[in-house]
């Protein structure tokens, strides 16, 4: 079953130097003078149920933009995206908490915005706190937390929603090795339940250990889409190509 179907999706951003540029462009007829930065150009791909897909590529190749489009946070200029199923996206972490409120209050708020009912939140709160391993701190304001604790709390809250599709950007960089391993175990758990995971990463090792399919983005389009075994070759090809240019 096809969970995500992306057809001919393009996304570009307008580049302005400053406010004057923007206003000038608003009133000028010559729209071609606006500089467009194409992040994705006619990208098509399907993701089936139960797949674990890695998205690779150099900095600025459109990984995060693609993930945003998939999760419905940002919207394409042209093309279609069809989604079947509940999506949870973990794109950037730690922010969105109110510093003066306790972890517990923040979790409740976070979860309710993500669409959990009061009852569901109550049943999950213990799981969230124990996964984040912040112990007694959960009753203290967020401003007393370290960056890692905030990130762990945000991560475990986001993951508790129980989605059909999990979209993750490279967010595990903040956690320590132990928490990273715990997260990976959780992802594996997800995978065993037949759920779909899409994640962006720079770590080839992690990708090979974890995914069956990899997509490499380059210059606004898909450079490679296939078995994870071939990813090394294509990655090297991409790097040599970039070096020559």
């Amino acid at each position, binding site marked *: 079953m096809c969970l995500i179907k992306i057809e001919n999706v393009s996304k570009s*951003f307008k580049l302005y130097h400053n*406010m004057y540029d923007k206003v000038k462009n608003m009133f000028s007829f010559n729209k071609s003078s606006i500089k467009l930065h194409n992040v994705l150009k006619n990208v098509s791909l399907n993701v089936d149920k139960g797949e674990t897909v890695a998205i690779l590529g150099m900095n600025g190749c459109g990984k995060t933009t693609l993930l945003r489009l998939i*999760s*419905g*946070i*940002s*919207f394409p200029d042209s093309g279609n995206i069809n989604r079947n199923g509940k*999506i*949870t*996206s*973990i*794109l*950037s972490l730690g*922010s*969105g908490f*109110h510093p*003066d*409120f306790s972890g517990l209050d923040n979790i409740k*708020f976070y979860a*309710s*915005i*993500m*669409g959990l009912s009061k009852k569901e939140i109550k049943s999950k709160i213990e799981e969230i706190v124990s996964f984040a391993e912040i112990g007694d701190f959960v009753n203290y304001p967020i401003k007393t937390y370290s960056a890692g604790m905030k990130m762990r709390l945000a991560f475990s809250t986001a993951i508790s929603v129980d989605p059909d599709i999990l979209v993750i950007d490279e967010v595990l960089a903040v956690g320590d090795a132990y928490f990273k391993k715990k997260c990976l175990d959780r992802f594996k758990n997800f995978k065993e339940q037949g759920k779909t995971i899409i994640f962006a990463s720079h770590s080839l090792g992690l990708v090979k250990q974890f995914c069956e399919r990899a997509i490499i983005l380059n210059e606004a389009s898909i450079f490679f889409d296939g078995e994870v075994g071939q990813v090394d070759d294509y990655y090297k090809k991409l790097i040599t190509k970039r070096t020559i240019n």
Partner: protein
Amino acid sequence: MEKGIIIKAFRVALFDLKARYHSSFFGYLWTFISPLTVLIVISLVFGQIIKIQIENFPVFVMVAYIPWTFYTSCVHNSAYCYQKRKAFIKNFQLSPLIFPLSVAFSGLIHFLLSIPIILIALAVFNINLSIHILWLPIIIVFQLIFLIGISFMISAVSFFIKDIQEMIALFVLVHFYITPIFYSADLIGRDYKDFYFMNPMACFVELYRFCFLGKTDLTYEHMAYAVISSIVFFLAGKAFLLKYYFRGVDRI
């Protein structure tokens, strides 16, 4: 609108209210302190010094000023409601309506909490409530609909114009003087009256006066206008926000 959106917006509103009072010294008392201060100033300046000849002038002003703060809080807060919740709109798939809606809701909660002040003032000045008070819920509902529409519009514009907050501050200042808050709408000449009441807030303020004090200058046309304009603002604001949100969300 979906029920889920309204519930979420309500939760955000409650969270915002809690956050506002959580770390402040006077907390909930601010709901009373700031309008009371303005009221005292207006009553002194216009009631005692300039001597406007209106019976029970402080109450006359208060009945209009408190609904006015409901309006100003919505207008000011909707200008940065997305900026404030950037972490959420950049991370989760959410309806664009939630955050502007929450602004209107938190304004509403505030307003409902300050209605007792009006009632106390009426008692202090020995003014008896008339049967017209029964209109109050209906007026509040339509003002809320109107303000939700305004919040939708302003929050949509806030994506594209960063100095919207300064513009709004200026606009609200001008709007305050063209709304019958510290003067009576009687003062407006017959020729200009219809033009004057094209300002929906003028209609609402007069409606509140009618409700609490039982006298008004409004005709049925003005009342119908208030109702229709609130629905128009709501629908137009919603359409506007839904149209421009897709482009706007990338700019924040």
